[in-house]
């Protein structure tokens, strides 16, 4: 079967979008599972990385690739810093306060990003990956979209075994499952929570860097007023993706990311009554996932109780 060119092109946009959702969802799940924080500031922390990339390339004149690496590290550092400064001081059972604080951090990050961008309505950022058109069948897709999808899959493939078998990964899971037992076994809860925040936020920074600098194709990309709002346009679907795995299952969060991304773009091809109501479909899906309480399928009873306390 030969797919029509527009289908392939739209699907490649969906793949890139899905990669972003997958990386955001991976970070959301990692942070929620280890520290119990529903990270509404996830977009804001990723935004730090993007803004750092813009400043490093445009103001400091650094080479884009080096700037991209540095800004991913900076996003991770901002996540670790926000855990150390704020989140570690709140009991994880106090969900309402944790969420309100996350909202405060989101607000903080968004306004700081606006300040650093100099209050411009749109800010041009240069690409850091080579952008070219690649022919797939009779369609031409952007190389960066393939790179984004490939990067997300590669990171997931590396991350999941690491989380399962490495010493740090096992310690992270121990903290998630039973903090008390973990600390009795000599695992420093705060150290591993900081690591989880750093990795999660670095992934958020990478997610933004994989899509925003390429929004205008080979001319680079733009940061608009939408991106500098506290939740951006990506956080809600990323939560949806994370909820596919009940906010606790990492592989399913990645799968969910791609499903949400591709579905969202493919619906553009649907009749206009449907394509203009994509967020409604997303909302219905998310509410169904929420009501199904999917997390109970993925975690042991003790961990579920720890999360629900």
């Amino acid at each position: 079967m030969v797919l029509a060119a527009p289908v392939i092109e739209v699907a490649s946009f969906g793949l890139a979008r899905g990669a972003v959702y997958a990386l955001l969802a991976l970070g959301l799940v990692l942070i929620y599972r280890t520290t119990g924080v529903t990270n509404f500031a996830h977009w804001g922390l990723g935004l730090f990385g993007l803004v750092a990339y813009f400043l490093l390339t445009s103001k400091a004149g650094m080479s884009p690739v080096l700037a991209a690496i540095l800004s991913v590290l900076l996003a991770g550092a901002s996540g670790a810093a926000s855990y150390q400064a704020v989140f570690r001081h709140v009991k994880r059972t106090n969900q309402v306060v944790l969420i309100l604080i996350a909202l405060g951090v989101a607000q903080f990050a968004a306004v700081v990003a606006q300040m650093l961008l100099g209050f411009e309505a749109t800010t041009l950022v240069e690409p850091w990956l080579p952008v070219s058109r690649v022919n797939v069948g009779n369609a031409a897709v952007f190389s960066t979209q393939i790179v984004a999808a490939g990067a997300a899959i590669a990171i997931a493939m590396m991350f999941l075994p690491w989380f399962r078998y490495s010493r740090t990964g096992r310690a992270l899971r121990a903290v998630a499952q039973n903090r008390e037992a973990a600390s009795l076994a000599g695992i420093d809860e705060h150290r591993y929570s900081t690591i989880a925040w750093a990795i999660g936020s670095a992934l958020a920074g990478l997610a933004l860097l994989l899509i925003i600098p390429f929004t205008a194709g080979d001319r680079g990309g733009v940061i608009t007023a939408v991106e500098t709002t506290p939740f951006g346009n990506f956080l809600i679907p990323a939560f949806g993706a994370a909820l596919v795995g009940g906010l606790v299952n990492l592989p399913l969060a990645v799968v969910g990311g791609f499903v949400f991304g591709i579905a969202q773009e493919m619906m553009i091809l649907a009749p206009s009554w449907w394509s203009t109501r994509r967020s409604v479909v997303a909302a219905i899906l998310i509410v169904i996932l929420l009501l199904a309480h999917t997390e109970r399928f993925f975690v042991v009873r003790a961990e579920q109780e720890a999360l629900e306390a």
Partner: protein
Amino acid sequence: MKSLVAPAETAVAEAAPPPKSLSMRMPRLKRAQVLAGVAFLALGFLPLAFGSFGLYIAAYVAVWAMLELSIVVVTGYAGMISLMPFTFVGIGACTTGVAVAVWGWPFWLAVPLAALATVPVSVMVGAASVRLKGLYLAIATLTFGNALGETLFKWDDFTGGQAGHVMERPKLGALSFSGDFAFYVLSIATALLMVWAVHGLKNSRAGRAMLAVRDNEREAQALGINATKAKLTALVVGGMIAGVGGAFYLALLETVARSGFQSPYVELTSLLLVVWAVIGGIDSAFGAFLGAIALITQTVVFQGAERVFAYVGVYAAFVLIIFLLLRPGGIVQVVKIQAERIRENPSRAIPASIIGFGIQVAIIVVILVYGAE
């Protein structure tokens, strides 16, 4: 879920020994109320000094206080985080617009209709809230607000198209509220009435049920409190307050563009509402007013001066986080603790309060001077 303000009560208790009986406590409350009343009256006359612009800002504050009150009921009393308060405001505003501008209803009939129009959405959120706790409800409301922005607020008949319905300020017989002073008096009177009602709700049977469910849902149910009913009541009451606020929001601005109720602006405004409700004091009706004063003075006064607005925004986020860690009861709690300390040890606490207040003022002044350069 633990109480949002449990540390608040313990902090007050540490500062002063708990009163032995209720009768001992009553006079102190009364005096605080009288003081608050006097302060309010004084504040009420303040805008007059700034003429028409001052009155406009003051009316804006009053309307925004109504919007903040809905968060006090839903999040402060019942402990549910709703990230769609501004969607309810939009429903109220658009319903009022349809009723007045299209059907030709008087404003006074449109206000109750605006309140009622929010009920179906509240019930929808309520149905979700039965099964979803804490973060799950927060995510659900975030997506509800997003989805309603793409459906309800794209419906031209409801929103009045891209530009929105145009409505004149209300009239009552020969009495017109179109002037700035008259509208200010109307909106501040309505807001104060609602503050009084929401404050009263806290001590009513329904309000105490909400607080009990907020502090410990299982314990409350064991005591025979219907948690579902308490949550639903909070959501419906909160939604109706936001609906009335929306009607006044439209009356204040005379027209409201629908893009404000669509993503991503609806999330932005909802978040601002929540942030400032927390800073004011989320479980206090009076705190809602303080939050509204703080938010609107900066929003309106610095309109266009984005830099100042941003600096204040960063400072506010900082204050919010400090408050949530140390004083979850917001400004109201800080004032209460300070008042308690002054009562205990005036010679030490009065200078400390003045210095603390002075530092706040100094920070704001630095922001203003630095931002306006």
